[in-house]
């Protein structure tokens, strides 16, 4: 029941807001729908954690500890971003960067995007997973070009074509997977169902699955932002409205990586060799290193944090690639804390850029003295994302690095060096924005900074003490991933 609501609510919200999305109360309606989604997600999680995995609606949907944790995270960040977007989009509308039609489009597509994310996570059918991922691109691409500036059009065009081609590769991977599955399960509807595939994974043809995984990894990897397929990501994050940057980083990247990991479980079972893990480690390491180098030369605040997302997704991909109980646990934890921290940072950075009237970091100064909440939020968020203890990102990175030292000693110094470079690059920039002589004007609509601090408080809590039931939950999910 809550599963049905989880999927139907955003659809209903999208329809309603497509008609009435320009009205002043639309932002609140948007948040209410997202909040109701969160309640459904929480209900589902309670059921799955207590009662184990479940399938529903003729096995078309499937929930286990792994995806239900992402369902909750997605619903939570979707809800807080909707709250943040209320004052943010009002300011944008006041400044006439967006009109009534734009607002309708924005609100409707926001709900539609949440729908595609939840569909991708809860579906048991790998074909539908693909359809939902492509749907997520379609829902967000018009939002990236919402401001109709030349730069935003270019960003959206790049996003559309690159992710389109990428996702086409993932479709080919899915077709190959189906080819192998047909042999084991027979033709028809069940051969693409993940639960059935997972049951027979050791009997799948290894040669075909290896090729299929390469296509799945490059395809969904484009959406994760893995180097060298990352080109769309900084542009799309920088040119779209900030709430969209927050959900792209906080939700879309996670869900794309989720698709890769589901593929990896099948391939590992069929091959019995660490091929998939090695590929993911290679891509992940390359991503971390390249992102660290590019972080140094950024001038735009949203681009800076977009590159930081690339870096962290690389690290998480690396951790999933290493595999094993500890690394997978760390990867899941890192997914959570990155999502929360990065969206908090985008909330703060969005308000800061609005206040200064520019996204250029040289134009943003003295946030702490002019609007302490935004300034401190940005500073604390930055410290958290850079892996300063006692925040949760530190815990996750520490676990990944120590595991790497034991299992992949060659990679650990490279990772450590890249994290060091990233720290120096980002911290210097943010410090200059937060302190110094203030610029810009106060905002008419008071920025909502509560979501920033709620996110950061959760990240802090996860760093200091992971509640046993969450730890047990992660452990259960990690054990399925091998």
């Amino acid at each position, binding site marked *: 029941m809550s599963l049905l609501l989880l999927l139907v609510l955003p659809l209903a919200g999208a329809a309603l807001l497509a008609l009435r999305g320009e009205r002043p109360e639309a932002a609140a309606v948007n948040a209410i729908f997202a909040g109701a989604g969160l309640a459904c997600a929480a209900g589902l999680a309670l059921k799955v954690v207590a009662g184990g995995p479940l399938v529903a609606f003729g096995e078309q949907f499937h929930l286990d500890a792994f995806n239900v944790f992402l369902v909750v995270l997605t619903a939570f960040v979707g809800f807080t971003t909707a709250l943040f977007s209320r004052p943010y989009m009002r300011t944008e509308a006041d400044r006439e960067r967006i009109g009534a039609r734009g607002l309708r489009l924005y609100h409707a597509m926001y709900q539609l995007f949440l729908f595609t994310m939840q569909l991708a996570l809860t579906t048991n059918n790998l074909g539908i997973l693909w359809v939902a991922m492509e749907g997520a691109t379609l829902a967000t691409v018009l939002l990236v070009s919402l401001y109709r500036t*030349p730069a935003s059009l270019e960003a*959206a*065009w790049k996003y559309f*074509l690159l992710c389109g081609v990428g996702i*086409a590769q993932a479709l080919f991977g899915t077709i190959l997977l189906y080819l192998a599955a047909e042999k084991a399960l027979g033709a028809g509807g069940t051969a693409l169902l993940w639960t059935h595939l997972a049951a027979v994974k050791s009997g799948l043809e290894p040669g075909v699955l290896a090729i299929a995984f390469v296509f799945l990894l490059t395809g969904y990897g484009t959406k994760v932002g893995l180097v060298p397929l990352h080109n769309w990501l900084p542009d799309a994050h920088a040119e779209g409205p900030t709430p969209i940057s927050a959900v792209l980083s906080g939700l879309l990247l996670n869900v794309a990586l989720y698709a890769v990991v589901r593929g990896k479980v099948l391939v590992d079972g069929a091959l019995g060799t660490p091929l998939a893990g090695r590929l993911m480690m290679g891509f992940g390491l390359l991503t971390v290193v390249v992102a660290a180098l590019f972080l140094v030369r950024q001038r735009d605040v949203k681009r800076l944090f977009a590159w930081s997302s690339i870096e962290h997704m690389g690290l998480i991909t690396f951790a999933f690639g290493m595999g094993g109980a500890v690394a997978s646990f760390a990867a899941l934890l890192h997914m959570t804390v990155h999502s929360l921290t990065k969206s908090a940072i985008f909330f703060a950075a969005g308000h800061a850029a609005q206040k200064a009237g520019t996204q250029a970091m040289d134009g943003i100064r003295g946030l702490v003295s002019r609007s302490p909440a935004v300034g401190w939020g940005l500073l604390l968020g930055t410290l958290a994302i850079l892996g300063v203890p006692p925040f949760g990102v530190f815990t996750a990175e520490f676990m990944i690095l120590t595991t790497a030292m034991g299992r992949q000693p060659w990679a650990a110094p490279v990772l450590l060096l890249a994290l060091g470079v990233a720290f120096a690059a980002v911290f210097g920039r943010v410090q200059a924005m937060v302190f110094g002589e203030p610029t810009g004007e106060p905002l008419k609509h008071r920025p909502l900074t509560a979501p920033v601090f709620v996110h950061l408080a959760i990240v802090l809590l996860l760093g200091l003490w992971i509640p046993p039931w969450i730890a047990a939950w992660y452990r259960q999910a990690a054990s399925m991933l091998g």
Partner: protein
Amino acid sequence: MSLAAQLIDLLAALLLLMAFAMLAQRRLMALIGLFAFQGALLAASTAVVAWSTGQAHLWWSAGLTALLKAVVLPLVLRRLAVRLAVARDVEPLVNVPTTLLVGIALVVVAFDLALPMAELAGTITRGTLGIAMACVLLSLLMMITRRRAIAQVIGFLSLENGLFFAATGATYGMPMVVELGIALDVLVGVLVFGIFFFRIRETFDSLDVEHLEKLGDRG
């Protein structure tokens, strides 16, 4: 070799020919025509597979392909071209011979890649997997070499055709629910592309993608 298998091979060869023709076609309207013809060939080959194997859902798939890829999408593209006043556009393509030579090399690569997979597929159409991959790679090449936004999108759609052909060739088609979902995505995708064309032209006064190469991390 049965009649059906021969027919499918013929259609596959024609599909590959279309991919090459699209690579070299400078006139937008002719390109849309070629795309429609490719869609019709795809539908025909799916129908032949349906007829020879008795897979009922493939008939639906063939009908859907015929409707969407051979009729609806070409019509939408044609209308877009007329409304954007680019119907008579002739695209300056440099080095068509070189492009075609690269295309031939890609076909060889595709056949080589498809060999191990084709051996596993038990379908009568498995020989066509190489051609499907070649179509995919040629479409990618087309997207890279084209300068006009509409031509790039046609390349993208033709890539989708190649993938569909691979799906029928290797597995007798995906489950129906998935195929419907993919068709929906393609349709919505084209509508979104259409909106984009207008926005791009409104902003830059042309549909040349060279205006869309300014962003980057050069400092």
